[in-house]
């Protein structure tokens, strides 16, 4: 297990390292002069002032030096300041990150609740009308754009029926974005759960369990679900990453105050320090989640746990 985790941690660190390189070089990929774009809101900025800014950001240094300087700052927790409003990037991100995590986690809970049950039932009742119904719904769900479903829910429940408050960021406001994000992902989880459970149901140890005379519920719960859960947990780990990605879109539909909404604004405003910070933070979150999932995976699967 130690070697398994060491390997995963190495991969995680490598991912973050590559991300920092990519992020620090991002600004050089921008067509046109990024400094000019960044300082466009200042009145009458002179070329000398722009040079000064360039020097301040270290953009006149060789790339390698720039990267080392950037890493030095990042390691000290300094992700720079925003162009719009001159705010510390890290603080802005951390203030909103909990909102995004809350949204993604709630959506994941909804997605798992629906997806696992539907997928399990479909697998168990494989080939029946119920399976067909569930899987048809699932493929429709997979095909539905988040933003469209979100808007329809928003207009119907919040604007038209006024069942849910619209102003604010409280728990009641979480319902629609979490459902939107959860439902479409539930479809994916259902499909994965189904195929994973079908694999498990076809396993010989399930037959063994039945042959022992165990009641069906016990076989399904103890034998099938426990065994099927291992691959499903890995998928759910990945799913959380997609939730984070999906949250970017859904936050914008519902005006949920998370990092995703901020990132889109930053892209519009060409606020490069904020975009860089966002990508880096996102990478760190994704990597942390995947390490956590590896731990969970190792804990669930004795073949890895006891290695």
């Amino acid at each position, binding site marked *: 297990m130690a070697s398994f985790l060491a390997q995963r941690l190495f991969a995680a660190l490598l991912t973050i390292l590559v991300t920092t390189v990519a992020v620090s070089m991002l600004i050089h990929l921008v067509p046109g002069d990024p400094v000019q774009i960044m300082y466009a809101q200042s009145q009458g900025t002179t070329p000398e002032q722009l040079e000064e800014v360039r020097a301040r950001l270290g953009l006149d240094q060789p790339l390698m030096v720039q990267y080392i300087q950037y890493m030095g700052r990042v390691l000290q927790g300094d992700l720079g300041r925003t162009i719009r409003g001159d705010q510390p990037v890290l603080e802005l991100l951390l203030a909103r990150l909990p909102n995004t995590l809350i949204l993604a986690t709630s959506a994941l809970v909804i997605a798992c609740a629906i997806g696992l049950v539907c997928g399990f039932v479909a697998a168990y009742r494989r080939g029946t009308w119920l399976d067909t119904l569930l899987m048809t719904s699932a493929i429709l769900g997979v095909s539905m754009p988040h933003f469209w479903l979100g808007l329809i829910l928003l207009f119907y429940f919040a604007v038209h029926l006024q069942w849910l408050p619209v102003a604010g960021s409280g728990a009641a406001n979480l319902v629609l974005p979490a459902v939107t994000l959860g439902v479409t992902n539930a479809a994916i989880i259902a499909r994965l759960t189904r195929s994973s459970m079908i694999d498990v149901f076809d396993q010989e140890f399930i037959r063994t369990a039945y042959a022992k005379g165990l009641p069906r519920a016990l076989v399904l719960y103890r*034998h099938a679900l426990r065994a099927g859960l291992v691959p499903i947990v890995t998928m759910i780990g990945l799913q959380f990453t997609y939730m984070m990605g999906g949250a970017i879109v859904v936050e914008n539909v519902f005006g949920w105050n998370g990092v995703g909404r901020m990132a889109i604004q930053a892209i519009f405003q060409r606020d490069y320090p904020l975009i860089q910070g966002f990508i880096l933070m996102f990478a760190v979150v994704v990597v942390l989640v995947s390490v956590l999932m590896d731990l969970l995976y190792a804990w669930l699967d004795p073949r890895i746990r006891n290695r």
Partner: protein
Amino acid sequence: MSATKSIEAPNDEPATRPAPVLEVRDLCTEFRTKAGVGRAVDGVSFTLHEGEILAIVGESGSGKSVTSLSIMGLIPDPPGRIAGGSVTYGGRDLTRLDEKALQKLRGNEIAMIFQEPMTSLNPVLSIGRQMTEGIRQHTGMSEAEARKHAVEMMRRVSIPAPEKRLGEYPHQFSGGMLQRIMIAIAMSCSPRVLIADEPTTALDVTIQAQILELMRDLRATTGASIMLITHDMGVVAEMADRVVVMYAGRKVEEGRVEDIFARPRHPYTRGLLAALPVLGTAGEVGGTQLNEIPGVVPALTDLPNGCRFSDRCALSTDKCLAEDPPFADRVGAHSAACWHSDRLAPTMEATS
């Protein structure tokens, strides 16, 4: 009983016939597939007697495993279902029992072990859990009692340090050890019938012999009847009292092991025997199979007219292609389903 004696009196009833434990009559099991409905088992009948080892023999696809699963009520439905016939055990027809009643029988009175010990045990549950759950299910023992019983069973199948190994997981055991554990699980409730589906196929030759010996011992000490499913005539020779040969879902030959080996009455049986390198020393020579039967078992949805074996049979005639030979039941003794049984020469001449 000696082999020569049975050859001399093939039609004789054995003097002391043990009581039947399990009777299979006209069993039909179907599977619905995209290509149509296939009868994996088509009107098979046989009887398992008290304390006997009955071998069901055939290549893969012959329907022998489906037969065993049908007896256990473990045919996955859909796509499978038992379309007809009966399985009588203890005066009850198992094919008509509800799930609850079947659960009481399975693992308790009729137990089963499978071909692949590696995949037949749940990789994410400890051996202890997998052993005790069946015991607790059928005996109502507490967890502690069940564990004690499990340790005892493990000892009986010669697993060293059983207390320690209870907490381990299947991937920490070798294949032979796992099959011992499978047997321990199967025997833990002292069943009257043990169905062993290719129990040694996946194992090394030396381990095979040990497992077979273990099964013989258990039969001797518990008096359980064993239904041994295999494709390996060597195993049959070593273990079985009586043999049922299946082909493409049908029983094609039945008889005492000595009779079958001495004078097969079906060309398919003959082919299976011929595939043995040296009679009676199965497994000693690994990969040098001789005289294999050409071709494969036909698809169940695409059976030939007439005799199902006709397309692979050296003796096949126009009659074979046109008419399905009936199973010529010679009252529980050596019988076969072949138009040309009499044209088959005894094998003993060639081998003894």
